[in-house]
């Protein structure tokens, strides 16, 4: 572990923080999952930051990425705000709960949770590479919570209904708890689950999740801030890196194919899971 004095962070560490932000931000924006899941290993394993400090910085970048997504027209057309805000009721409660209980958990327990969560999602994504939850008939009624958007790939308007709302709410609550515990946005759980269980197209699930996780993160970020877990200079470096990186990711996103997005997501998550299983054993 590096002995880090918040008042004197070396320039080299700040540069690494910016780079970690650029990498996490571009991948996160591309996948609509906020980037925290990439940033935690980069800061924790790469820079040797304690997990809670990495989580605190990650929550800040999640808020920044989410803000950026919410004002970008490319993503805005996929955002389903009515569904997103309903899920937010559960997610913010989970975030608050997670931030409160994280103090009592051992580092090893947190490693195991992170490894399990990412491992499970990687498997889910790999088994669902070619599934599409779209109805290519614009006369379909999307219902109270569903939505519609124009998809470039099929050249038609996509309409979808929301299935299994209790499942969606449970997923939002769970991802909020994970967000409060680990500092990852929670989109890592929400996007595949909303896609797999609730019939929401990948693009809509990703954009809605990306826009809402900033508010989910706000359910726990002020508590990390108050506890002094957020190292301000490193948080600033990482946030700026993430903002630059997310612009890069959003610029490329319309060209990315849904299948390759899922495959990339699964591979990265599997790698993160392996890293943390190893670390939980080594801890």
């Amino acid at each position, binding site marked *: 572990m590096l002995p880090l004095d918040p008042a004197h*962070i070396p320039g080299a560490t700040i540069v690494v923080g910016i780079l970690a932000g650029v990498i996490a931000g571009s991948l996160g924006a591309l996948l609509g999952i906020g980037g925290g899941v990439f940033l935690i290993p980069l800061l924790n394993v790469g820079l040797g930051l304690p997990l809670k400090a990495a989580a605190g910085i990650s929550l800040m970048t999640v*808020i*920044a990425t989410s803000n950026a997504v919410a004002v970008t027209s490319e993503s805005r057309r996929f*955002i389903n*705000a009515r569904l*997103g805000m309903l899920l937010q009721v559960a997610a913010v409660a989970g975030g*608050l709960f997670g931030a409160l209980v994280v103090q009592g958990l051992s580092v090893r327990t947190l490693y195991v949770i992170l490894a399990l969560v990412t491992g499970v999602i990687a498997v889910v994504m790999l088994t669902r590479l070619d599934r599409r939850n779209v109805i290519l008939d614009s006369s379909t009624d999307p219902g109270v919570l569903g939505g519609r958007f124009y998809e470039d790939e099929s050249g038609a308007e996509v309409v979808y209904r929301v299935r299994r709302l209790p499942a969606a709410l449970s997923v939002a609550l769970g991802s909020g708890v994970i967000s409060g515990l680990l500092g990852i946005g929670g989109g890592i759980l929400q996007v595949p689950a909303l896609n797999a269980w609730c019939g929401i197209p990948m693009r809509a699930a990703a954009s809605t999740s990306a826009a809402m996780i900033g*508010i989910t993160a706000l359910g726990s970020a002020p508590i990390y801030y108050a506890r002094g877990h957020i190292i301000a200079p490193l*948080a600033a470096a990482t946030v700026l890196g993430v903002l630059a990186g997310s612009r890069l990711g959003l610029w490329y996103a319309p060209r990315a194919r849904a299948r390759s997005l899922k495959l990339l997501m699964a591979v990265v998550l599997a790698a993160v899971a392996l890293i943390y299983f190893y670390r939980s054993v080594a801890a």
Partner: protein
Amino acid sequence: MTDPQDLRTQFLWVVRAMLVASGATLAVGLLLHVAGSPVRADQVLRGGLVILMATPVVRTLIAVSERLRQRDRYYLLVTTLVLLELSLTFWYATMHV
């Protein structure tokens, strides 16, 4: 059908302005830190982080004001619940600084 989108275009500039303000403040704070004045840097950086954390709240308030004009009671109720939860978080954070 009610517009499922998040923010209306005429208020997007507020969120954009806050995004730029927090980014600029954090950049200035970072430069101060690298330049070797950690105390002033810390004050500026904290300001930037607070603007950053305030942005999603402002975003939510703008969205709900738009929905008020559309008389979207469902959205108003749901958003109020979320804002109540967030004030619980802020309350806990300020009590435990």
